[in-house]
């Protein structure tokens, strides 16, 4: 599980004078779901295009399951599953025919074996009842699920998913999450991009945040949050009504200079101290005789972090 299934080293992609991907290095071990996030123009799509052999980079080395992508692209394609953004399907085929085309293209045995495998994949994405439907009749979310089934057909060891959840309803998103976790547990390395970042954080075991062609931070989700220097969180303390006035007084002292908001018996304020300091704060409140009913912490969302990054880009222009 520890060997890197995806290994990117010094990857650079240029479009004329624009550097889309600027000397990035990234490694995704087998069994990991890595989320690639960043604002528009961060270099995610170019990285995906290179990873999927659809584009030659300016330079750099990419290895999939220890195979050099540029030396043995055909071999690399055998272990690669790619689901593009706005995944297209042909209008003149039925679902099973579409899947059979790719099962056959990937050399999956006899028609009977292909049929079994297609049934498994349709089951996985909950489209079994649509087996004989026309691809053109599917909704956006169903189309995404069908393409996911196509991506799973040949049991890839590396999966590259570009916005896989777009158009899916909440139930399908949950199913997608479960499917990805199951695949990761079986040793598949998955790299996924999405604009629904909260969901990505739920889905991924690690994150890679890109901006202007560079990697800002990569690693486990919390580590990335820390690396991005954003430990700010909002604390919400709810007290019993009889100690609300006392709580107001004590918290005003403790949060001197910061905005303290009160909604009934609940007090909210920004806090960026360490975990120790947060524990000490709670002790102070309890020692002061305040009856704390709830003590909640809300970390800044990835959306917030990316908005900050994007705003920084805009102001630097």
């Amino acid at each position, binding site marked *: 599980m520890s060997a890197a299934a995806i290994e990117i080293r010094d990857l650079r992609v240029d479009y*004329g*004078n624009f550097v889309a991907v600027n000397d990035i290095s990234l490694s995704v071990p087998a069994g990991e779901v890595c989320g690639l996030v960043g604002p528009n123009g961060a270099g995610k799509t170019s990285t995906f295009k290179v990873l999927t052999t659809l584009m030659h980079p300016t330079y750099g080395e990419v290895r999939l399951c220890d195979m050099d992508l540029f030396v043995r692209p055909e071999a690399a394609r055998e272990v690669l599953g790619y689901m593009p953004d706005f995944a297209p399907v042909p209008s003149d085929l039925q679902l099973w025919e579409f899947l059979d085309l790719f099962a056959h293209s990937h*050399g999956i045995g006899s028609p009977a074996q292909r049929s079994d495998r297609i049934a498994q994949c349709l089951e996985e994405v909950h489209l079994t009842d649509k087996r004989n439907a026309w691809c053109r009749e599917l909704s956006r979310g169903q189309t995404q699920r069908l393409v996911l089934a196509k991506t799973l057909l040949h049991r890839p060891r590396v999966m590259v998913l570009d916005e896989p959840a777009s158009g899916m309803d909440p139930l399908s998103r949950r199913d997608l999450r479960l499917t990805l976790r199951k695949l990761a547990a079986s040793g598949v390395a998955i790299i996924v991009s999405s604009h629904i970042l909260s969901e990505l954080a739920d889905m991924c075991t690690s994150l890679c945040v890109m901006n202007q062609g560079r990697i800002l931070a990569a690693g486990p989700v919390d580590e990335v949050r820390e690396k991005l220097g954003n430990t700010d969180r909002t604390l919400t303390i709810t007290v019993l009504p009889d100690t609300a006035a006392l709580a107001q007084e004590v918290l005003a002292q403790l949060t001197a200079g910061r905005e303290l908001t009160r909604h009934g018996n609940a007090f909210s304020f920004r806090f960026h101290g360490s975990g120790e300091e947060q524990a000490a704060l709670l002790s102070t409140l309890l020692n002061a005789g305040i009856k704390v009913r709830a003590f909640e912490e809300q970390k800044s969302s990835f959306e917030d972090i990316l908005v900050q990054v994007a705003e920084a880009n805009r102001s630097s222009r």
Partner: protein
Amino acid sequence: MTETPTAVKPPSAWRLWENPIFLRYGRSRLRKRGLVPSLIIFVVLAAFAYLITPMAFRRFDEGRMQLKAYLEEQAAKNPAAKRRLDTFLEFTHPKIHSDQVYQRMAIIPLLGIQALILFLMGTGQVAGGMTTERDEGMVDYQRLTPISPIAKVLGYLFGLPVREWVLFFATGPFMLLALWRGEVPVSTWGPSALIFFTSVILYHFTGLVAGTVFKSRRWAFLLSMALIFLLYFLVPQGSRFGLPFLRYVTMWPVLMEAAPHIFPPEPVRDWQIMSAHIGGAGVDFFDSNFSDLVFTLIVQGSFILTMLVMVWRKWRQADSHLLSKGWSLLVFAWLCILPIGNALPGIRDGSLFPVHDMRTLMRTPLGAAFPTGEPRPEHAFQMCAFYGAVMLIFLILLVIMLTPAQDSQARGLRRAAKLKRRSAPLFADESSAFLVVLILTAGGAASWAWFTRSVLQAKWFHADPGGDTFLVYFGVLAPAIMGFHALLEARGGKWPFLAVVFLGAVPILTSLVLATASRDVPSTAVMVAGASPLAQAVYGAESFMPWHGLRASTVQLHDTIRYALVIWPAIYAIAAAVFIVALRRHWKRRRS
């Protein structure tokens, strides 16, 4: 979902019946709802053609026999009517043929129907279908499957027009019936059937290339139709101007070889004359002689191979050029050798000269209207000018194929810098095409010079233009081609293409307006036309022609052409030098 990865063994390229892409189109294009109506239409059409043609021809001949009897009766009564009878007999050769001959007549409309199905409908389907695949994004999916690029090419080549193949085979029994009842031996129709098949492959490949290159389905369809029209009707006309190999991109020569053994000799003779091709004599190539069948296979095979390489490269890597630099050198060398090898024997015996067609026509009543004579300098001029213009067009097409896009070149240069090299490998797509284009231009000038010298050294002229031919031709081709290449590589985009259209056509059109507007300004018109590289190619050939006894006005024009041939290439050379300097600056900038 926890299984280990499946052992992947993609299907073989050559087992078409197992090719997933072929099977995919077999499913989608052979559904009853789409297939049955087309099948009914074409089977009914073929049955109608098969049944009515023999009867119609017999009726027609019977009518002519009745007319002949009537004219004979009139001539017996009135000797003045004898002339009418003679003319009638000379033009129409009335005769009742055997039943077999009338059965064979059905081959003509059936062949037309089959050609319509596979040449036009099939090619359009390949071009349009390929563009749709790309539009729908299926091409990228396919690119990521591990089946080999050649299997993908074959899958699309035979899969996209699979319905047309079925329609073709559905009309096949009528053709076989006509051949069987007409008692045409396999040895006679076999070669034509083989060439029909290779022609279909050639045209379908043009559709595949058009569909791969063009983004719009409509444009790809229109371009492929235009290419078929060009290949079938326009390009073969080049055979009348010294490039007989162009005729062999069609199946016409092989049909003409077989036709005398199938159809009555008189109409066959007329067809042969109209198409300026008398079958059966074979094709001379340097000192060898090939049958029409073999030579057609060689010519079509070389074009098919070139297009196979183009689409194979595109399947292998989407941003590849259609041809690599190495392949284009080979292709261009073949495009130079093919016309020369084919033309030299014709120059020796005079059959290559345009006057030859007229002489052939002379043997028919229709030909009596044309003057006879030996090859003259104007014939040599037509051929050499045409050869130069064709070379120029070939070179422009190759420059477009070989010149790297700015992005791709920048990547190549930066990759080289990262690897501490001076530049990308010479023959890589992203490296500059400057040197290769220079070699191609020199090769084009050399082959044009070889052709011109061979023509002028023929027994009718005994002229020796000397070594200047290459220098003059290189001087004509190089500034235009190198300038275009430098502009395209430095700037990219639409401007260089607009420059080609503008500089190629506008001076010629302007000179036509000038020449039409006043009778006194032909020299001005000639000078203005010289701004077009196409006109420069024509002027280049003109400057070596052994003109004799020219009138004073023609001498003046001849002198103007010589001036134009110095001034315009010089201006182009200066422009090309400026573009090349700019190109060097672009290289430096792209590297950083």
